[in-house]
């Protein structure tokens, strides 16, 4: 797990914990659990929501650490300004990743799905939230193998990324199609920028 701070934000939003899991199994159960938790009532509901209080992100659609961090930044910024479009800062990260404004489409694509095999998990909180506790909760919620973020680029499904961002026919992509390494860099550049400016895309 990687933790970092956003020191200029209000303290309750200033700590970010992120982890990457590969070989994830039972993602269908995880998805069902998230749905149940969101509507469960009483103290059991509270506890359940606490246990899965993370952003669960489809890792194959993340092109780089910068991509992830940009989405986290814009979500935290929206939360700090009282401008969330979704219920929580965690769902806001998923919303920020999706090119369109459709919330359920964002959850379907960038959230956990029944076929999810690798996951990026994010928790935003304050300094009172200890990294080891967060890590323990993450491990408890996910059946999979924790991996360093350097693995991210092997997991990326570039075809899906290009499709969702409608990059198939862009001049900038066509120009570099003979050089896969370069193409990935260009796609990543566009994707990161799209996430950064989503709030003003209009």
């Amino acid at each position, binding site marked *: 797990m990687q933790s970092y701070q956003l020191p200029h934000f209000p303290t309750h939003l200033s700590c970010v914990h992120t982890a990457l899991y590969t070989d994830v199994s039972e993602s269908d159960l995880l998805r069902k659990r998230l749905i149940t938790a969101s509507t469960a009532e009483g103290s059991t509901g509270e506890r359940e929501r606490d246990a899965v209080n993370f952003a669960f992100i489809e890792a194959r659609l993340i092109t780089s650490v910068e991509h992830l961090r940009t989405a986290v930044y814009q979500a935290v910024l929206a939360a700090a300004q009282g401008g969330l479009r979704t219920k929580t800062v965690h769902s806001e990260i998923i919303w920020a990743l999706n090119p369109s404004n459709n919330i359920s489409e964002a959850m379907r694509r960038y959230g956990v799905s029944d076929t999810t095999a690798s996951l990026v998990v994010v928790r935003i909180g304050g300094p009172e939230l200890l990294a080891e506790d967060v890590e323990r909760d993450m491990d408890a919620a996910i059946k999979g193998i924790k991996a360093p973020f350097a693995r991210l680029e092997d997991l990326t499904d570039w075809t899906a990324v290009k499709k969702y961002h409608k990059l198939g026919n862009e001049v900038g992509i066509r120009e570099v199609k003979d050089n896969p390494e370069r193409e990935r860099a260009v796609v990543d550049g566009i994707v990161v920028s799209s996430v*950064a400016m989503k709030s003003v895309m209009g």
Partner: protein
Amino acid sequence: MASASLNLISGATLISQGAEAKVYKARLTSEPSDPAVLLKHRFRKGYRHPTLDGSLTRARVAGEARALLKCLRAGVNVPGLRMVDAVEGVLGIEWIDGQSVRKLLPGGAGEDEDGASEDDPEDADSLNEYDIPVDILMQLIGQEIAKMHLADVIHGDLTTSNMMLRHPSSFKSRHPTLSTELVLIDFGLSFHSSLIEDKAVDLYVLERAFSSTHPDSEPLFASVLTAYEQRMGKDWTAIGRRLDDVRLRGRKRSMVG
């Protein structure tokens, strides 16, 4: 409590201040390994009605961000976006390590504002450092502008100060023989247009910038145009003709009468 973006700025290093915005270098996270970003803050204008000021700032931040994304998608070399806070008027973009073309060409370093003397002595001939002959540099300029115009983005303020060469050490080149890349920056006055007139005026503005900043630069600008022409293809005929018209009338009328 001050907003997050203003906190961010208060800890950032001021790079320059223009009429529109202040520019800073900052880091978005606590991670020293995270790349630096350039923050462009369109600060509040006290003379403007607050409502008007707010909506204008928002629209301009959005406009600049959209122009940059449009360029990226069209394969124009521009800095990527890193964060946008339209409420506070802050745009965070990729920090580019390198040098402005203005300072690399004869005459451009003269009225330097941020003390080039601190740089190493090689600075005098720093095109060597970038390992790029002047005529190739001019070609790159022409090509990038053509790519931008093909995407119907008008820069609005083309000068040699608004173009940078990436420093070879900071950048993995995709080009077989070139170790640098030309990047167009500062899209603060840019807009979307497919009009021949707007493209011709964009070129004319650059031509004037060349002649006023770099002495005896006519052949330089001519090779910029040659590269532009090649890249624009059939669109060039009309733009070239219009450029001649614009030159004759001058962008700004003189005061006669």
